[in-house]
């Protein structure tokens, strides 16, 4: 059974957000990588790009499927995980930690509070 950290917030689009002050680290969930299968390609936004909540900000491709990454919150990209460009399979190996995707500076910190808790999210994927 995968571990869904209680300190993270989750979305119905199968992403997680870890909050540190006004910076959020965003990744995809264990469930999402499992559904996708072997990840072979990740397209990341540029540092400095801004996007609104629910906007597509990148794509992630497995051998068989392509999936958009949706912004869990509005914000500006302050860092991207460059390692994923050369080692996209890291997303399958460690989706909740080292294979984070982007870090953003929140433009509306209140949005985070409305996201799902770990137990809500786990209930969702067990439906």
């Amino acid at each position: 059974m995968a571990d869904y950290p209680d300190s993270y917030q989750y979305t119905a689009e199968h992403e997680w957000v870890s909050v540190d002050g006004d910076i959020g680290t965003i990744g995809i969930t264990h469930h999402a990588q499992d559904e996708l299968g072997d990840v072979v390609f990740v397209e990341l936004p540029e540092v400095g790009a801004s996007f609104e909540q629910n906007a597509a900000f990148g794509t992630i491709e497995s051998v068989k499927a392509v999936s958009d990454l949706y912004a869990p919150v509005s914000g500006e990209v302050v860092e991207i995980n460059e390692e994923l460009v050369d080692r996209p399979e890291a997303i399958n190996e460690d989706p909740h930690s080292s294979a984070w995707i982007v870090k953003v500076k929140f433009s509306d910190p209140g949005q985070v509070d409305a996201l799902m808790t770990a137990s809500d999210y786990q209930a969702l994927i067990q439906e």
Partner: protein
Amino acid sequence: MSEIRQTPLHDWHVRHDGRMVDFAGWRMPVQYSGLMDEHVAVRECAGLFDVSHMGEIRLSGSDALATVQRLTVNDASAIEDGQAQYTAMVNDAGGIIDDLLVYRVNADEYLLVVNAGTTEKDHAWITSHAQGDVTVVNESSDWAQVALQGPVAERVLGRLVKEDLSAIGYYRFVISEYGGLPAIISRTGYTGEDGFEVYLAPAHAADLAEAILKAGETDGVVPAGLGCRDTLRLEAGMMLYGNDMDESRSPIEAKLGWIVKPDKGDFIGRDALVRQKADGTDEKIVAFKAVGRGIPRHGYPLLDGAGNRVGEVASGTFAPTLKEGIGVGYVTSALATPDNEIFIEMRGRSIEARTVKLPFYRRQR
């Protein structure tokens, strides 16, 4: 829509953690441990596939050969007892009804192995065109089919059957038995690797699958799903009915002209195919590799250098062996030759690609 069917190996798949999906009316495993691992296992060791969903249609009688000859484009008179042939059935316009294997059991008996999704259609087509002394029987539910594909296939399967597998040549088969019931062991496959397809009684399929896994444990044999079957076949340049060809495409457009034998005499679609061979066709299938970063996918538009739409991707994938994006698609015939620059429109971006000769991957013999 008819009900989703299960193969005799359904419970076996579930027991081996197969991820089950609906495919061509069947509940099938798309993967077990993971598509990439399974793909590599087939190229380097061997993978065990359930292909029981495929259809088997038997033609028997003194006019069986004449019927096969009228219904298929290849020359079935050229094969011997115990030999199989890749061929296609086409309609009057030359459109592909199905691609299939013809097994010659003997002069009066042929077994046609057809695609799962087209079995009913094919059976109806064959029955309506059968003339003279020929009986057509859809035996699909009487056969399970297990494929062991990969370099260690002969060694592993050889431990379980009494036949000398080294004596079975490529595209040859023997009629044997397994568990006291008839079985067919055929040196054929859909992966680009050496390997065998075993047709056997449904009741014994799980027994054989389990025996193969056990016998091949130390040789790296793993259960392999439809996911890697698709990446393996595309790397090997094999066409998939429904994706890469259908009734709107002819064998000439699909670059399967090598299976069309007009000299054998008359057959359904002959005139149309002879004309296409002589005059050419507006479009043809072409293979390509993505040069830029990106993975071609079914339905993505194909563009020429000026940005004009020249076709679309029929099959596309990330190629696990080659580690790049590959695909095939129908384009204007002028572009359907190797070494042309084309572009793939991927979700609003235009990615450069280069046309290549098939196959993408060829095993070392």
